[in-house]
Structure formats: structure tokens, C-alpha cells
């Protein structure tokens, strides 16, 4: 595994492990509630009602990064679940339903008080239904209306004009859905949601994402990339899962300051940087070394992934007189921002230009149908913008069909033939 170049990355990893250990102790020893939720469910509501929440995608990435996933996927296959079904959203479920098949990280998940998912992709409902059944826990679903009006350059509207981003009927429905969720969480926690505290929380999330925005600008403007993409992700996501907390704000600041010091000192990931790469799609968690594999041979550095950039562009909401509406406006269109035309391709091309990207690698996961769709529009838009694209056929968390050497050879050939030409 590539060495960690930033102290904040080490601190982020240690925090997550400690946080998870504390959560297990609290659940087992103190019988306190916790929730298992999809990444796009508003964590803020759970936090304010004293119910810590674990992200399905985070847990899936942890299992995969620790190379513990294959036995669970094999168990799914033995149970008759087709190989073509989404792996990313189901690995956590598999580690519970087939717990005897392998070892989950850090002792595994305790039984949650609630599972909660937005019905973005068609697979979410059946996967979470199986997961809830395996735990014997309740499932709360939030339906997901489709967007019919997608104004251009969404990232310029999210902060101040967020009401223009979501059609009124869809926004109203999303608010009602979150209110139903609040009622459910209140019944679990025995507390009442403090609306002023919600506004304060969202203010703090804004502060955190503003720091990420400043960090993004440091990285994009620096002559040479100061921090590896994998370390950007580790710092950002550890913070996002507990966003708006004291630790999150302090850590975002620590990460920013460390990046700023590296930029000021002229410290680069790869002093011989010649090619600036972007990674389009979710992380390939089972082989994160892949992202540092072309630094020595080609001076090729991954500068950008969606994880740092999406925080400031997707989360910041100014004008918090109605905090639930602001929160609903963020929640309502996650998939459209990141996967669907025209929003995803338009934003990614914009980000590529901002970061002076020379070439893009686009993840093509065969099993994750939502992530697999929309990518042809993204690839076409990047190519039309003069940015060569290499599709990478891989799953985010399932390494069983992944050939690391062949994949690296394909990238080297791509860099030689299409980028260094």
C-alpha cells in the first residue's frame, strides 16, 4: 500500500477506527441505538437525535479495502443471487446475511435499531429488505421522485438558489419524507428535534464544506499536485460521515492547513508530475494502490475524484430560514448530480478544466447498474472537451474478476498512446 504522506490521513484513519469501536461498545454495553443508512440519507437528523449512523457505502469500502469481501460474494452466489447484481450496495448486507462465510472488519456490525435508505436505484429496496430481515431490524424507506427539470450548471445554483434546483412538488415531497423520518427517529430516541439546532448544524456543515472548497482550490491551483487523491478521499469521507461535528470541523481545518503548507513549501506527490489524471466514479476500494501506480513510470498523478469536489458543490446551502427545506433540496438530487445527464457530464467537464486535467479514467462497474449508466455521456463530453478517456472495467468492491497487472498495463498503454503522444 502506498505510504501516507499526510499526518491528517493517519489521524482520519485512527478516528474512524476509534469511532466504530466506541459505537460497538455503546450498542453492546449501553444498549444505545444506532442506524445503518445509505450514504445519501441526511446524517444530520440522526446525529441531532442522538442516533449515530453508519453509511452502507463506507462499511462496504472498509470490508473491500481490507480484502475481506470475496468470501461474502461467494456466499451470495451460493445462495443463488446472480453475479450481475450490484455489489457495492450489497456487500454490507452479505456480511450480515452470510456472516459465517467470512470475517467482517473490527468485529462486524451490531444489530441496528433502524435501517434507512432512499430508493434511488431499483436494487436499494430489496437489498435493504434482505439486510433488515437478517438483523431482525426495522427498515425505513424514503421514496425518490424523478427530476424532470434540470437547469444547466447546477453547481452555481446549489448555494444560494437551491430552490431553483428542485421542482416545488418534489421539494415539498422530500420535506415531508424527512419529517416522517424525524418522527421515526424521535420515537426511537425519545427526544424531539430542535429546529434551531438543525439550522446551526447546517451552518456548521457549510463551514466545513467551505474549508473543503478552499482545499480544493489549493489543489487545483498548485503547480504540482500536493496530495494524493486517495488521501483526499480518506480525509474528506472520514469527515463527511460526521459532518458538522467539532471533530469534523477541526479535521477539515487540519487537512486544509497541511495541504496549504505543502503547497507553500512546493511539496508534490510526484515531483516529476507530467500528467494530471481524474478518476470518474466511486473509488475502487479493493485496489487503492492502483491510484499511485503510474507516478514513477509516467509522472501521472490522480488529481481529482468526486469526493472532495462534491462536498462544497453539493452540500453548501445558504439561506437556512427553513432548514428542513434546505436539507431536502440537497437530498433530492444526489443521483442526478453524480451519474445522470446532463448534470454529471457537465460538472465533470467543468471540474476537469478547473484542475487542468490531461486524461480521465472512467469506472465501468458491470454490476452497479446506476453507476454504469450515464457514463457514455460523461465519456463523450470529456472527449469532446479534448480530454482522452480510458474506461476501467472493474467493480468498486468486488476484486474477484480484477486483474491488477493487466489493468495497469492497459493504463500505461493508454498514457503512452493517447496522452504523451
Amino acid at each position, binding site marked *: 500500500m502506498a505510504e501516507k504522506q499526510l499526518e491528517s490521513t493517519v489521524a482520519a484513519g485512527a478516528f474512524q477506527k476509534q469511532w466504530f469501536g466506541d459505537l460497538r461498545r455503546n450498542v453492546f454495553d449501553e444498549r444505545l441505538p444506532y442506524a445503518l443508512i445509505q450514504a445519501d440519507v441526511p446524517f444530520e437528523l440522526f446525529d441531532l437525535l442522538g442516533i449515530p449512523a453508519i453509511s452502507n457505502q463506507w462499511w462496504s469500502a472498509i470490508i473491500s479495502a481490507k480484502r475481506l469481501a470475496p468470501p461474502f460474494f461467494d456466499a451470495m452466489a451460493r445462495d*443463488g443471487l446472480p453475479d*450481475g*447484481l450490484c455489489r457495492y450496495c450489497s456487500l454490507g448486507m452479505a456480511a450480515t446475511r452470510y456472516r459465517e462465510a467470512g470475517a467482517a472488519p473490527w468485529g462486524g456490525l451490531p444489530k441496528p435499531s433502524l435501517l434507512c435508505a432512499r430508493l434511488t436505484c431499483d436494487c436499494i429496496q*430489496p437489498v435493504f429488505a434482505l439486510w433488515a430481515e437478517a438483523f431482525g431490524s426495522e427498515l425505513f424507506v424514503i421514496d425518490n*421522485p424523478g427530476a*424532470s427539470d434540470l437547469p444547466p450548471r447546477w453547481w452555481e445554483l446549489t448555494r444560494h438558489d437551491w430552490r431553483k434546483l428542485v421542482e416545488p412538488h418534489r421539494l415539498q*415531497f422530500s420535506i415531508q419524507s424527512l419529517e416522517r423520518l424525524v418522527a421515526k427517529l424521535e420515537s426511537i430516541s425519545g427526544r424531539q428535534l430542535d429546529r434551531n439546532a438543525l439550522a446551526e448544524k447546517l451552518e456548521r456543515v457549510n463551514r466545513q464544506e467551505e474549508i473543503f472548497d478552499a482545499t480544493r482550490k489549493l489543489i487545483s491551483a498548485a503547480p504540482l499536485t500536493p496530495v494524493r487523491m486517495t488521501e483526499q478521499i480518506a480525509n474528506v469521507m472520514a469527515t463527511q460521515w460526521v459532518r458538522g461535528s467539532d471533530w469534523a470541523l477541526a479535521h477539515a481545518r487540519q487537512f486544509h492547513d497541511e495541504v496549504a503548507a505543502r503547497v507553500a513549501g512546493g511539496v508534490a506527490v510526484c515531483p516529476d508530475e507530467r500528467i494530471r489524471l481524474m478518476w470518474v466514479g466511486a473509488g475502487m476500494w479493493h485496489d487503492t494502490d492502483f491510484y499511485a501506480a503510474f507516478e514513477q513510470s509516467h509522472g501521472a498523478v490522480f488529481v481529482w475524484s468526486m469526493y472532495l469536489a462534491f462536498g462544497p458543490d453539493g452540500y453548501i446551502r445558504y439561506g437556512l430560514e427553513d432548514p428542513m427545506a434546505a436539507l431536502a433540496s440537497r437530498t433530492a438530487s444526489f443521483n442526478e448530480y453524480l451519474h445522470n*445527464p446532463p448534470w454529471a457530464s457537465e460538472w465533470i467537464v467543468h471540474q476537469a478544466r478547473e484542475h487542468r486535467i490531461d486524461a480521465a479514467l472512467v469506472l465501468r462497474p458491470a454490476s452497479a*447498474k446506476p453507476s454504469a*449508466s450515464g457514463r457514455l455521456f460523461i465519456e463523450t463530453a470529456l472527449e469532446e472537451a479534448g480530454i482522452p478517456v480510458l474506461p476501467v472495467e472493474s467493480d468498486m468492491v468486488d476484486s474477484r474478476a480484477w486483474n491488477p497487472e493487466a489493468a495497469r498495463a492497459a493504463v500505461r498503454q493508454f498514457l503512452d498512446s493517447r496522452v504523451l503522444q
Partner: protein
Amino acid sequence: MGSTAITALHSAFSDTFNVLGQDSRYDRNVVVASWPSVPVEVIRAAGFTPVLACSGAGATPAADEVLEAGVFPERIRQLMQAALTGRLNHVAAIVLPRTSDTDYKAYLYLQELRRRGRLASLPPVVLFDLLQSQGQDIAVYDSARVQDLLVRLAGLGDKQVGAADLSVQIESGNAARAAARRLAALRRNPVRVAGAGMLPLLGARWTMPPGRYAELAGDALQALAGRAARTGPRVLLAGTPVDSTVLHVAIESMDATVVDEVSPYGIDVAGGDIDTAADPCAALATWYGTHSITARTPVATLIRRFEQSLADIDAAFIVLPTDDARFGWDYPRLRDLLDARGIVHAAISGDPAADHAPIQAVLARSRGVQAVRHG
């Protein structure tokens, strides 16, 4: 008269989408929907003829350039192919429901292709944002979406449309549903019609004017009711809902009969009647939200529907094509239910016309079970 009715019903099921693009005067009165979770009553009330996109055997080279491989079902590929080759240029509108990810993404793709200038002549594309989870907020939301669809479609024509028009369509639609239920009864105890013949008779309900459908279905019923009972294994199709008879033909070439399929083109075309006493938009929203078989039908609803089909079944096939993202998750539950009842079964993921072996194996086992049961 009966054979004429059967021919007309089969044609209404098989040909309505394929003939688009041949006569612009006919096309102007057509609204194309990608799945029958779009209320045909609304389309008719607005003065248009509903036509449903469907799977076909034709190649889809233009669609394959813009749709990712292994993600979109055949019916969406055919719809996109027709749009990209100009066959839908003269229809009044294309309506895509939110009831699967691929339908929703097809809506976004069509809009984007238009924005990029590749579909400059495409008619209006409308998203019908029907949600299928449960709750009062869902019912209110869906009812408003039905109203919105009616307003949008009515705005495309010169017809003044109101609630009374919807009520008329609901009432005549209920009569057609009743006729479909009578036809579907020929599939059980005894089985008088092969599934490959029955599916089009039922599926035509979506696209044919309801009064005409009820009349022809009645004629077909008379012609078919006297047929000799079919013997051999009785088969259920579940998993990804079928919208063609390809699998029926393959199964029935081996002396079995498909007597039910969990699909909006089978008996689910009829379902229960739509409430005529309620507000028509709310009644349609309730019916389509709860009865539509889609990728977003709640798990419990699908399983319940499946369980209702298991009486008098000898074998089942779970259809799981490679583009499936949803129905495969139910496989362990369906398998356990079938095993508990001693019903032989198999998953079908490839082309049934090309590979008969898994079908043959299951049907052979089901005949063995039948022989033991009946001495």
C-alpha cells in the same frame, strides 16, 4: 368470428409499436409509453391512443451507441432505437414512468440527446413520476402526478378534458378488466389455452379501446371455452416481468403450458377494478401505484403476488436477464417458497429460444413429480 377476434387482439398486442413511423396521420394520435404503469385511461381521456414500447427481435444499433451494455432492458433499447431512427417523430408524446431506474434514465437520455441536437424532431417527452412505496404522502403525490399528466397530455391536443372524461375511461376500463379476467380463467382448471396464445389476448387490453376490447375478448372467450383441456406441466413465470411470448413458446414446445406470469401483460392486466366512487385522479394513482408490476413494486407486494400464483403449479421459471438489477434479489425467497411446496424450478438468464436445456430439465422433473402425485 372468434378467430377474427383472436387475430385482432393478437395484432393489438404485437403490432402497435412496430407500425409506428409508417403513417404520420395515425402517429399523431398516439402517445407512446415505455411500460404499462402509465395510466392508459389518462392517455385516452386526453384524446390519444396508447401504444406501449415492447421487446422485439430487431437489432438496435443506434440505441446501442447511447445505452450502456447490460443495463437497459430490450424494450428500452427498442424505444431508443425507434426514437433515434425517426420512427417516433410524429407521435404526440413519449411518456416514461419513474417505476424503474431504466425508464427514468431513458427519460433523461432522451432529453439530453435532444439538447445535444441528436433528436431535434423528437416529440415532447414526459416523465410520469409514479412512486410505489406506501404512505399518505405517496398517495397525495401520485394523485397530483396523474393530474399533471392529464393536463400535459390534454395540452398537446385541442380537447377540453376534465374529471368526467377520466371517469368515463375508468368505467369502460373496468368493463375491459372484467372481460380480461373472464379470459384469464381459461388458464386454470382446466387449462384450455396456451400461454403464448393467452398473453397477447390479455396484453391487448392496454392498447385497445376498452369497449372494443371487451367485445373482442367476449368473442374470443366463446371461441376458446370449448377447447380441449391441455395436459402437461403447468408453469409459472416470475422474476423480471415478461413482455413477450418468447419464453412461452420455448416452454410450450415441450408440452407444458404457461398458466400465469407475474407481469402486467398477464392476468395483472386486469387486477381489481378501479374505484369509481373516488376522485378519478386519486383512484388511478392508487390502482397503478399498488397494482403495477415494476422494478419498484414493494418487495412484500411482489412476494404476495407470487405466493397467490402457486396453487396448481407444477413448475416455475425465474426470469433473470443479465440487465436485471432488481428481481434477482428476490430469488432466495422465491426459491424457498417453491421448495417448500415441492414445485420444481430454475432460473432463466439466457435466451430461451437458443438454450432449451434448462427448461427441458425442469419440465422432466416436474413430470416425475406429477407422476408420483397422481400415481
